[in-house]
């Protein structure tokens, strides 16, 4: 790979942050989606990212596990550069194999679940730990069954995903991400594709993860949930982080007019 990215020379904090994004830029053609985003997540923290559609919050989330390549800036997860290796003063992209090894440590939950429809629920959860992390199948299966019980689909392990409700599918998808024992889990609007009565059961699983001390980054439109579960709320607009802080600070004492305007529509 000869692709290189100019390193933004901003002071780099070398403490073990769970996630650290500095000066992240990303364009799709002429559309400048991320315009220098900084984001810091400490271990055990739950971060909710809010913002109007088109503000770049999903794109930011997808750069965190290199599903989108950044045009400039750097991203570290658990102190390790994501997707690149620093050689001299330039970032060189890692090989496909190395990138996939990194991604296995970063859980990702999609809006549309993206379960593998031709594999059973159990096979969905077991696949990646066995093929990506080379762990023994029997051990992974035992752990998968425990995880599926934790998310409340223990009676569906041999069903195919299409036989399940949306809420059940999303809970399986969360179990699938957890099976890789990730350092952080990224949620991309995990309840946006669900019927209203199914949203609660998925949020309950995420709430439980938060209580257990997992590091979570959640792009969401569920403002009430963000206020309740998040340690830090990040408000994004037009490719930039406009405001961040505790839920009380952002929801009740927002400094920026843009934040207040957005919240007035959704609260």
């Amino acid at each position, binding site marked *: 790979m000869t692709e290189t990215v100019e390193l933004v020379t901003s002071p780099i904090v070398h403490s073990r942050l769970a996630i650290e994004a500095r000066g992240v830029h990303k364009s799709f053609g002429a559309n400048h989606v991320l315009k220098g985003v900084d984001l810091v997540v400490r271990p055990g923290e739950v971060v909710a990212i809010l913002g109007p559609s088109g503000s770049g919050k999903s794109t930011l989330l997808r750069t965190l596990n290199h599903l989108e390549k950044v045009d400039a800036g750097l991203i570290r997860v658990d102190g390790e550069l994501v997707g690149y290796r620093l050689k001299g003063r330039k970032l060189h992209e890692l090989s496909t194999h190395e990138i996939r090894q990194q991604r296995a440590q970063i859980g990702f939950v999609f809006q549309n679940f993206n379960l593998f429809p031709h*594999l059973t629920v159990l096979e969905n959860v077991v*696949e990646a730990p066995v093929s990506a992390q080379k762990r023994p199948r029997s051990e992974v299966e035992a752990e998968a069954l425990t995880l599926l019980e934790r998310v409340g689909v223990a009676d569906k392990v041999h069903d195919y995903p299409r036989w399940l409700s949306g809420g059940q599918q999303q809970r399986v998808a969360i179990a699938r991400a957890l099976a890789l024992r990730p350092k952080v889990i990224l949620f991309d609007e995990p309840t946006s594709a669900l019927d209203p009565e199914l949203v609660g059961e998925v949020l309950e699983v995420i709430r439980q993860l938060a209580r257990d001390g997992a590091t979570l980054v959640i792009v969401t439109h569920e403002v009430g949930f963000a206020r309740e579960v998040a340690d830090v709320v990040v408000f994004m607009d037009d490719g930039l982080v406009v405001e961040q802080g505790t839920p009380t600070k952002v929801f009740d004492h927002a400094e920026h007019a843009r934040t207040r305007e957005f919240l007035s529509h959704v609260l």
Partner: protein
Amino acid sequence: MTAVSTGAMSPPGTEPDADGIVTDDGTVIPASELIVARNWHPWRWVTSIATLVVVAQFVHGLATSPGWNWGTFADYFTARSVMLALWLTIQLTFWGTLIGFGLGVVLAAARLSRNPVLQVISWSYVWAFRSIPLIVQLLFWFNIGYLYQTLAVGVPFGPAFFEFNVNSVINGSTAAVIGLALHQAAYSAEIVRAGIIAVDEGQTEAAAALGIPRRREFFKIILPQAMRSILPNATNEVISLFKGTSIVSVMAIAELFYQVQIIYGRSGRVVPMLMVATVWYVVFTSLLSIVQFYVERHYAKGALRNPPLTPIQWLRRSFNDLPLPPRGVTK
């Protein structure tokens, strides 16, 4: 059925009744005992009988016209020369399919890769081999010895390690296999590519996000899902290749069609010999259709809650649904 309760709407002779209906002769039938009569479809019977008469005439004609000469058909249907020719036809189909689809998968992968050189080469291959008529390609391969007398394996544009004579390597059947397979590869490539791009992009993304290795992603996640749309078209291709092998008869290769031509050329019994070939083509095409059904059923798992019934399941259910009196009941 319930009785109409608005008096004004009732036809004469029927009185509205809360629990049933009054017939013309004054008896009252309770609503719970009213039965919907089965309709009698006279035209359905007429058209069915008329069609069956035509079919019966056709079958009768087949069975009785001396021109069909079923005796000759029976003599040659399993004759040794016909069996050998059938075996060659099956071999041509097998290798044409195996090499054709193998190369087709490679071409599809090249076309979908991010390497522009591979994309262009794959596109050009498909363009070229779809553009040249199969019969022309076959004759070309058959005559390859005129273009190149020797083939050599060695360093590109450099020294050769060993050489061999083209005509000793490429005989009639290998020329036929090469021609059929390369032609097939162009069509297979497009069928495989169509199947792969029909798989939801979210599947690739999920596999990437989970860190599943690329090769594993292709064979375990993408291809099994693509198979659902690949299979019906692929079976079409195998069947048309099986019948299409008859085209290599122009190169005097003793496959099924060439062999029956030889036989009727000698005996003059054209029709029964054509029927020998026809029936064998139909038999193997039918076998392929059955295989298709079961393979498709296999790849439908997870997509359908209830997989389609196998013919045996279907027969059993139809038999159970027959309106027969329950066992042990006599009139």
